[in-house]
């Protein structure tokens, strides 16, 4: 459908080889964050606050310290003070003081589950027993959970004064972002049709199956090692060093396999605390979370209140959009509002726009990135409103979207023009897909929604080395969460024109490779892939150069063809040396052949997706079943097609869970009532149909193989796609998530 000007044929790109780390993972050999043990290791335990908001008056650790087998106790007072931390601000927008106070509360606890103290002992049972012996005296403070309640004049202040607040009086507003252009009010009053609505949801959790865990060993000479799983071991190094005010190079972080992250493992919770306990005890210390800890104290995605107004001419041309939203920031300042603003309405050409969002501090765990952070919430509101607009206009909802779809060169909400985006191609592919015209059964309805995510590039380092037998090792600094070792090997093998199995890929520790940002922002295949290609090209050049010197011919007479250095002119024309031959004699031609690429990747492009969802609604119970689902996405170009499809399918499943079941439920005392998988109901296999994926390929011209980010986009459209399908099946517009059976039942039978 999007015929490229020149057809490129690839040896490996787009194929589906077995991942190099696969056998370890299907046999149980792979070591995850929770699996690592160090010799002589102590077991840690954390005491957490039972109150959502309280001042810590005193902490008495004496009883715990006296217990035989207890080797160290730590509280917030053991972390360096604020003044010393300001000197060592870490990477990223999180304030290092907030990160420190989130690891161990300093003077106040800000949510139920906030860590207050920690112990290390010779057994896990003893550590838990000792933690329970720590006596904390609290002055309980009034708490606030709701967005509007937290914005009320008499609301308890989470911080005094709120940082970055726009008002002059202290408030719980932690961030306020507004973008837009034109005259929104005038355009809305002149519009033929205006739809408006308020959309709401509570926070949801990333739901990775592996709880957080780490082992830290900090020696008296200041040097330390940390073994943990995370989305970025360089992030663990810089944040831990900043919280502890120590040099980064004194910490070596060894990445263990990661059991899912989805944005939630882009910060530290345990590592600085384990470090303190290790320093005090002189032993390696393991800290881990229970599932309840994960729910109560790690970053959920924010819940939201979103107000939308959309105006269109009678022919369906959008003339104005206003989106105003509030997100839960939780106990500390979070970042989702920025992405929420830039992800709300940029997929349409609209002359008059105003998008404005705030982060609201409240007594909940600090919100953390969750797959396209900030985008699914606003997209739910905007794409539901688009559905309503189509109904009011009497227009086909897909045609309405095609009529208004942004194209390359159109302006984003930020005012920057869109680059080579494939949004229109996705809409065309969806229209042509058999799902779009398939018949529906009784009590069924079809919904559609489209959305996008900006993606990212940034710093990555790759080292590609050649062994004496001509085989290759790619070492990256990017944790492999969903098959990235395989994609790196594919790209390197493509450049080197050798079999896939001749290239192996590993994730190196922070002392063995240069800085690389987190595996997040859908950046790894793009940015680390770019570094891999660059390093492979340099290795290829070096191998050709060695061959040229061996043959005593000018370097320009040697080319790399089909995995061999080939002499292309002169007396030696036709001479060939394989990688093994060049590498085998490399010690006599200038030394080992290796290349490092360290870059900050630019030119990333957003990904667009368009989803078609069929639901069946049980009129008696209000239960919604997903009966068919198709996700179309512009992926740039798929490097490993299976893992691209897998990212899309996984994102859809999370989006369906968000739409239908998942939600944080707090009681009036500010305590989480569903901190377990039984009550926090994520989709299981029997809830899901197969998820049909359509990979549209509009290559990114900046990336050597056309890569755009893939992983985050697919969680954006499902919320509205499901809601629009429920509307089509029942005639009821569901504006509050999740669309759980009780809510759907109430909507159907007028109890709501």
């Amino acid at each position: 459908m999007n015929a490229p000007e020149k057809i490129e044929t690839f040896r490996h790109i787009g194929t589906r080889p077995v991942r190099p780390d696969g056998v370890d993972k299907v046999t149980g050999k792979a070591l995850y964050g929770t699996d690592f043990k160090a010799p002589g290791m102590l077991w840690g335990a954390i005491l957490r606050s039972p109150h959502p908001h309280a001042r810590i008056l005193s902490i008495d650790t004496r009883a715990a310290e006296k217990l035989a087998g207890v080797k160290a106790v730590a509280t917030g007072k053991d972390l360096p003070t604020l003044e010393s931390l300001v000197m060592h601000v870490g990477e990223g927008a999180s304030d290092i003081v907030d990160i420190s106070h989130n690891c161990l509360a300093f003077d106040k606890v800000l949510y139920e589950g906030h860590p207050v103290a920690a112990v290390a002992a010779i057994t896990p049972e003893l550590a838990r027993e000792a933690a329970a012996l720590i006596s904390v005296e609290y002055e309980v403070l009034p708490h606030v959970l709701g967005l509007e309640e937290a914005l009320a004049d008499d609301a308890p202040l989470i911080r005094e004064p709120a940082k970055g607040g726009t008002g002059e009086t202290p408030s719980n507003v932690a961030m306020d972002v507004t973008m837009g252009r034109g005259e929104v009010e005038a355009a809305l009053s002149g519009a033929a049709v205006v739809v408006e609505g308020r959309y709401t949801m509570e926070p949801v959790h990333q739901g990775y199956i592996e709880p957080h865990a780490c082992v830290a060993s900090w020696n008296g000479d200041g040097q330390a090692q940390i073994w943990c799983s995370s989305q970025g071991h360089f992030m663990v190094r810089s944040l831990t060093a900043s919280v502890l005010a120590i040099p980064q190079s004194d910490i070596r972080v060894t990445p263990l396999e990661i059991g899912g992250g989805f944005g939630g493992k882009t910060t530290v919770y345990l590592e600085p605390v384990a470090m303190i306990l290790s320093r005090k005890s002189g032993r390696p210390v393991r800290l881990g979370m229970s599932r309840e800890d994960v729910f109560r104290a790690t970053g959920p995605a924010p819940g939201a209140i979103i107000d939308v107004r959309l105006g269109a001419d009678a022919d369906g041309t959008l003339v104005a959009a206003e989106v105003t939203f509030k997100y839960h920031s939780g106990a500390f300042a979070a970042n989702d509002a920025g992405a929420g603003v830039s992800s709300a309405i940029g997929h349409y050409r609209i002359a008059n726009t105003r998008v404005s969002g705030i982060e609201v501090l409240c007594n909940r765990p600090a919100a953390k990135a969750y797959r396209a952070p900030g985008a699914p919430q606003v997209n739910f509101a905007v794409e539901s409103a688009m559905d309503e607009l189509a109904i009011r206009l009497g227009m086909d909802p897909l045609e309405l979207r095609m009529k208004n779809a942004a194209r390359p060169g159109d302006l984003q909400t930020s005012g920057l023009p869109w680059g080579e985006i494939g949004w229109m191609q996705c809409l065309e592919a969806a229209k042509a897909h058999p799902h779009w015209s398939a018949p529906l059964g009784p009590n069924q309805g079809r919904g559609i929604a489209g959305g996008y995510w900006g993606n990212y590039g940034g710093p990555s380092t790759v080292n590609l080395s050649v062994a004496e037998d001509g085989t290759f090792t790619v070492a990256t600094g990017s944790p492999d969460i969903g098959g990235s070792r395989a994609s790196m090997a594919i790209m390197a093998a493509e450049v080197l024109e050798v079999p896939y199995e001749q290239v192996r890929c590993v994730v190196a520790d922070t002392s063995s490779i240069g800085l690389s940002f987190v595996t997040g922002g859908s950046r790894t295949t793009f940015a680390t892939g770019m570094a891999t290609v660059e390093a492979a090209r340099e290795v290829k050049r070096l191998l050709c150069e060695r061959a040229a010197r061996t043959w005593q011919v000018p370097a320009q007479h040697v080319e790399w063809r089909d995995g061999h250095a080939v002499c292309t002119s002169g007396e030696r024309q036709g001479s060939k040396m394989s990688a093994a031959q060049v590498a085998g004699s490399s010690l006599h031609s200038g030394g080992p052949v290796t290349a490092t690429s360290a870059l900050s990747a630019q030119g990333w492009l957003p990904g667009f997706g368009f989803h078609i969802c069929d639901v069946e609604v049980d009129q008696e119970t209000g239960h919604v079943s997903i009966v068919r689902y198709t996700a179309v996405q512009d992926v740039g170009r798929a490097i490993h097609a299976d893992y691209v499809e897998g990212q899309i399918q996984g994102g859809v499943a999370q989006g369906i869970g968000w739409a239908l079941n998942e939600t944080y439920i707090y009681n009036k005392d500010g305590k989480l009532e569903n901190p377990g998988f039984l009550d926090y109901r994520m989709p299981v296999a029997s809830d899901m149909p197969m998820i049909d994926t359509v990979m549209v390929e509009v290559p990114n011209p900046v990336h050597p193989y056309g890569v755009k980010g893939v992983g985050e986009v697919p969680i954006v459209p499902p919320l509205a796609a499901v809601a629009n399908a429920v509307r089509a099946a029942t005639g009821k517009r569901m504006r509050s998530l999740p669309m759980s059976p009780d809510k759907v039942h109430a909507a159907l039978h007028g109890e709501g």
Partner: protein
Amino acid sequence: MSASPLRIVIMPPFDKEFFGAERLSLDAGNLFELIEKLDAQGPGFAKIARARVHLAVDGVLETDWTRPLADVREVIVLPRVGGG
């Protein structure tokens, strides 16, 4: 140095937070120098720039701040958006 001063477009929240203006006109050889000059007009801006700011040069995001700005017309200062 560019022939005419650069047009600097300051997006929210930085317009209100640091500069009290949405547009500025400045000379700078590269983006590092631009940030220094912006810091002089909005004290504290340089300190938050690395963590919170993206710069777009003639409509395209630029993360290499050593990039020369000769022949550049416009730089947009916009909030950096986090990924997951």
